């Protein structure tokens, strides 16, 4: 079976004056695939996601969205086999194709959780909410177990609850591509696993093809749920492939500056990364300086 490319990025560059953030990125995303983007703070993960979403305008390179016309019913049939770039799409079409979970949301006034998730239906709604929109939102709330606070105000929720609501909005948007920027950063352990599992369920559904691009810090989550991993460092992708091939102690040391072991699980075919220690040892020195200053103050 040949899987369609739903996102193709070629030689993408983005930068601010004096600071090049993305230095020629190539990546592809297929249907039924969950791709995790790993890398240290400032590696350019969020910037890459924002370029793909059209929030930031890249300076060179191309981003194309395969089979968009088919997916969102805008084509006349002839264009469906060609890939389409961001210039060809209006914001509403982009929003039907891709949904986004940002790292944080800046909420100034808040509405009910139900209505917040309903915003995922905005690209489809003229003005009034249809029965289908309501049904999709209600199902999404049940799917993510958000029933308990469905009619509470969004800003009265805890950080983790808010994050799940925003993920709910992204799911209700029924996109072809999920673009998630650290969707589990505020979640407790159980919810982290639950959210990743549910995302995996959505992406694996062969009747409604979808893909997900997820920036994440937890390498063990990535190892467990990703179909492929992109390892990013300093604006470049330095390794791509199946989790086992990419998450080697050598690669992890190169990117994250920590030593680690790969541990094979006995009961199933899984593995995890045991992170041991940082290798530069900067912290010890700083600790000493800090103590020294304290002594001076006392004296």
């Amino acid at each position, binding site marked *: 079976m040949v899987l369609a490319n739903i996102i193709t990025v070629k030689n993408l560059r983005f930068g601010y004056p004096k600071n090049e953030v993305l230095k020629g990125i190539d990546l592809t995303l297929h249907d039924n695939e969950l791709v995790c983007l790993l890398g240290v703070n400032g590696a350019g993960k969020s910037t890459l996601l*924002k370029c793909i*979403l*059209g*929030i930031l305008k890249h300076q060179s390179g191309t981003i194309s969205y395969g089979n968009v016309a088919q997916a969102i019913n805008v084509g006349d049939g002839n264009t469906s086999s060609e890939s389409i770039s961001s210039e060809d799409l209006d*914001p*509403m079409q*982009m*929003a*039907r194709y*891709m*949904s*986004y979970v*940002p790292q944080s*949301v*800046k*909420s*100034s*006034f*808040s*509405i*009910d959780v*139900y*209505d*917040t998730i309903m*915003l*995922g239906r*905005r*690209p489809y*709604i003229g*003005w009034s909410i249809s*029965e289908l929109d*309501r*049904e999709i*939102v*209600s*199902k999404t*709330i*049940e799917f993510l177990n958000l*029933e308990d606070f*469905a*009619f509470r*105000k*969004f800003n009265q929720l805890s950080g983790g609850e808010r994050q799940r609501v*925003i993920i709910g*909005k992204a799911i209700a*948007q029924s996109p072809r591509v999920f673009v998630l920027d650290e969707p589990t950063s505020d979640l407790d352990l159980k919810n982290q696993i639950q959210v990743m599992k549910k995302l995996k369920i959505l992406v694996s559904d062969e009747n409604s093809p979808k893909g997900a691009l997820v920036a994440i810090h937890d390498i063990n989550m990535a190892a467990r749920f990703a179909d492929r991993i992109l390892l990013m460092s300093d604006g470049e992708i330095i390794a791509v492939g199946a989790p086992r091939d990419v998450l080697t102690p050598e690669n992890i040391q190169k990117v994250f500056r920590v030593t680690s072991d790969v541990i094979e699980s006995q009961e199933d075919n899984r593995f995890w990364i045991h992170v041991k220690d940082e290798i530069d040892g900067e912290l010890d020195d700083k600790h000493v300086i800090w103590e020294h200053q304290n002594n001076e103050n006392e004296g």
Partner: protein
Amino acid sequence: MNPLSEQHILKSRNQIKSIVLLGITTFVLALFAMGQGPYEKLDIWTTAKMIFGFETPTSTEHSIIWRIRFPRILMAIVGGVALATAGALMQGCLGNPLVSPLTLGVASGAALGAAVAIMLGLSVIGGPLAIIGNAFLFALIVVFIIIQLGSTHSVSAESYILVGIAITFIAGAITSVLNYFATDEQVSQLMHWSFGSLGRVDRDTALFLTIPVVFLVPLALKWSWDLNALSVGGDEFAISTGVNPAGFRKIVLVLSALLTALVISFTGLIGFVGLAAPHMARVIVGNDFRKLIPSSAIFGAFLMLFADTLGRTLFAPIIIPVGVMLSVIGGPFFMYLLIRSKGR
């Protein structure tokens, strides 16, 4: 149907009921206000019958109701709806609860225009409309500055507010200078303009101002989804649901500023409605703009009618300007509402 969907529909229906109730209350208040005044005081029932043609008024009653009171009541409603809608729109698209239609400096511009007409005798049009014409022209200059600002690359919500504050300071300073060199009579004339009164508006003006308001409110309702997305999640979140925040913000601000300019050029400074009415509406229907906009508009009309009627009757035949009345009675009421809603 899914129980969650049912609950959502039920909640929505209850909110719509509150809005309708608010609308009816405001309408009754308008009828009552039509009967109030120093002469020919009529009870609300008689007024209703006269207005809807079930009872023929005497010629004095007819001319008092239709020539004197009707323009005033209409202007209270139109002005209240316009300023409150503009306030709700601006708070939403700038993501800031402190914003009011006066934040962008439109009012200070208008006041400077009025000062130039009164003190320097310079005006775009002569005659009785000199002050109004000038106020509107200067307010338009402010709108033009906003358009220019909106066209620059990646302007944020904060920059609009900061530029508005800068405009307010500059226009205020020039007005102060003019005031300093003016005669006592000129100073009192400017003071009088700035009070904010509905008495200066005749029937044709009130009807003329109704037209843009009738267009704006449905347009604002159409923007509800975008406003919800922007105010719940900020710019990036809004983009991901299909909004273009920069373009949207510019259009919304320009239209709100224009509408504000139109109203306050004729009435003088009325600031409180645009700030308070959206917040009062929030207490009742929450922040979903599909309900917030109509309820803000009705609250705006209600506040204006209430303050003006009280201003006309409290110390009759002396009329206290609506702008003053609004701040005096509206301020404490507003604080009460805010404290009460925070307590829940």
